[in-house]
């Protein structure tokens, strides 16, 4: 007889614990996971993102029971869900509102990470998994948006897939390969359905698990950016830490309720959210022969869509100029082999910027603006994590960055005009400069002293 593991628990729980790490997992992740006690409003959004993920999966399962991924029936089947499936309208509105609210919550979650330096050592992997989740979410939203087979579904997909044709040499064949046809069609709908309901969710769940495991390995950051594990009591528990359960579970119940008040108010009173959550044009069935006058992606893609549109042929001159300038600076600032390689690469980029079609660089700008986020942990050289102890002008820079992001988002919903295009170009430069110049500006200025312990006022 094999030896049984000796455990503290008895009875049924003991029987389980000898075979499966139930109690130890519960302790490690909930009852004895010590989180800083000074979490503020910004710390609701992680658990809310998890909540919305679960909502999307559950409502999605019910939608798939009635939805037909077939160009002929897709649009009708959505209306069938809205009108004839009992409670179908509620499930569908939860899913459509959930998609937008997912991005609201995730954008706020990312803002929190940005301002409190939650991506800094030792949380680089937490951040990288997180950016991976964000990318998956964008893919998930994009694939899902085709499924109702409305006018915006169709033309949005058409525009985005066409972007791939801008890639030199392989572009045109690549875009046909993605669509499975020469235009967006039934074949495209079927593969997007497969991606939306199986492929991306699997990756997403894996990444979310990795994100949480990585977080619990290194512990949560906090608004002061102080390491709570540096000061422990005689039992080895952080002095400024409290068990996640029950303190943050009751806290999150409050957050979830507040979130649901907003979420349900939208579902029951403004499910279209003025045409931003459900675009009005998408209530018309897809018509490959009728191009809408104005094709705008859903609001959560618009900041990136603005950067795509901003990259015109004129604008590549500006980018090429910036690249040459960077090459000169790097030549004087770097040493050794880098002195040769970095400037040469930058000059080549500058040349390519002017030789390859601007459309391609638009795609690079759009994709690159997200990919750039992966490198954030190695771009920030500030001696403190939290914005609380940065110089005041850093706070102004962050303010400009966030306002700029919102302005880019607004511009992306609007039909292009000359002035809007110029604003998008300036906005794109601000976005890129914020990250690419971060190694320079993040170490400048007078930083405030960081306290030993977190700032906390008892309730």
């Amino acid at each position, binding site marked *: 007889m094999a030896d049984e593991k000796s455990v503290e628990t008895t009875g049924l729980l003991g029987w389980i614990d000898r075979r499966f790490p139930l109690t130890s997992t519960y302790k490690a992740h909930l009852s004895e996971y010590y989180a800083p006690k000074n979490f503020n409003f910004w710390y609701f959004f992680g658990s809310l993102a998890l909540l919305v993920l679960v909502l999307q999966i559950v409502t999605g399962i019910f939608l798939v029971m009635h939805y037909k991924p077939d160009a002929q029936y897709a649009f009708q089947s959505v*209306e069938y869900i809205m009108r004839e499936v009992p409670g179908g309208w509620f499930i569908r509105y939860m899913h459509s509102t959930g998609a937008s609210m997912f991005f609201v919550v995730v954008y706020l979650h990312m803002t929190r990470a940005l301002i409190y330096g939650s991506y800094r050592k030792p949380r680089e992997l937490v951040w990288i998994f997180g950016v991976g989740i964000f990318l998956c979410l964008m893919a998930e939203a994009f694939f899902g948006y085709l499924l109702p087979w409305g006018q915006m579904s169709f033309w949005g997909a058409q525009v985005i897939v066409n972007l791939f044709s801008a890639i030199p040499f392989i572009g045109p064949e690549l875009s046909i390969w993605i669509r499975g046809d020469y235009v967006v069609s039934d074949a495209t709908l079927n593969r997007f359905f497969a991606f939306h309901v199986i492929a991306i969710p699997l990756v997403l769940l894996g990444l979310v698990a990795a994100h949480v495991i990585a977080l619990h390995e290194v512990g949560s950051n906090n608004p002061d950016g102080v390491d709570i594990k540096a000061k422990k009591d005689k039992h080895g528990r952080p002095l400024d830490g409290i068990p996640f359960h029950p303190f943050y579970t009751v806290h999150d119940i409050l957050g979830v309720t507040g979130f649901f008040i907003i979420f349900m108010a939208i579902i029951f009173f403004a499910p*279209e959210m003025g*045409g931003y959550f459900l675009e009005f044009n998408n209530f018309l069935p897809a018509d490959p022969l009728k191009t809408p006058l104005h094709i705008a992606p859903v609001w959560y893609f618009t900041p990136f869509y603005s950067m795509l549109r901003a990259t015109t042929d004129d604008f590549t001159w500006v980018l090429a100029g910036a690249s040459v300038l960077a090459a000169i600076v790097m030549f004087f600032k770097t040493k050794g082999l880098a002195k040769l390689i970095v400037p040469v690469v930058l000059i080549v980029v500058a040349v390519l910027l002017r030789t390859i079609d601007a459309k391609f660089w638009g795609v690079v700008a759009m994709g690159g603006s997200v990919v750039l986020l992966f490198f954030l942990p190695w771009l920030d050289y500030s001696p403190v994590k939290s914005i609380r102890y940065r110089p005041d002008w850093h706070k102004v820079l962050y303010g400009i960055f966030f306002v700029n992001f919102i302005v880019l988002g607004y511009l992306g919903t609007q039909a292009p005009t000359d002035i809007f295009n110029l604003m998008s170009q300036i906005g794109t430069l601000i976005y890129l400069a914020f990250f690419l110049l971060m190694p320079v500006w993040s170490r400048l200025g007078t930083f405030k002293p960081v306290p030993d312990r977190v700032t906390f006022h008892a309730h």
Partner: protein
Amino acid sequence: MERSSRSLTVSRFTHIELNFIYGMTMIKKLLCALALVITCTGANAAGGNFPLERAPDRINDLASLQNGAKLFVNYCLNCHSASAMRYNKLKDIGLTDQQIRESLLFTGEKVGDLMMGTTSVKDGKTWFGAAPPDLSLMARAKSINAGPTGSDYIYTYMRTFYRDTSKITGWDNLAFPSAGMPHVLWERQGPREMTVITTQKTAANTDKPAGWERISTTYDSAGYVSNKVETLANYTGKPKVEHKFKSLDPQRAAAYDRDMADLTGFMTWMSEPIQQKRKQIGVWVLLFLGIFFVIAWRLNASFWKHVK
């Protein structure tokens, strides 16, 4: 088809109106046939920035919705479909199966059938240049972000037809210029004149200095155009374009406006039949969450008072 099957028990229609409706159906069929002969190319997109009038809100008025349903089935459904709607969904606006069967089903449909028009896509394309669109969701689809609703669009569209002999159907529309659809309900609205008044700057030439002029273009009730140009002295405003309708039968036109408000109300309801119930449930959901929020807040506080 028997005449008796057309009698509308739910209706406020008189026999004269019934005859009229019957006649209208015939006229529509003739119009369709006519259109078949003259193959027209309808404009596809609703363009123009014509200011939309706000549609009266009749979404909670059952009699109005029922009148709208009747108009919809009698007029719109011949060429258009509402393929997301079943006839028996009309029970939600207070009709019974029997009423639906007796007054709204003309060609042997069952109450559980979808509201399908009788014009095929192919015929629609041949007759009007574009297939008449499905109307199930039109009141939602025509809404504009942070702008007028699709209901406003429908209400304005239905009330801004004018005769224009230069158009293939003999009609044009202000809200949707070069619309493929003729004014199917024109007899209910009665004859009207439309005048476009354009106030614009004139360039200086050898005869006179730069100034302002007002051009009035009138489309009379038969669709013939006449122009009048006046020179404006001392005009200080901005250039503008105004449209004025003059009804030659104001009573009929007023009744038509009420009918169009009802029809718009019906199409608004049809675009999302659950909308009123959704809002009713929403009030209870938010009340519950409001109370639960207080409980969650106190629960949170009772735990956190131990955190020093």
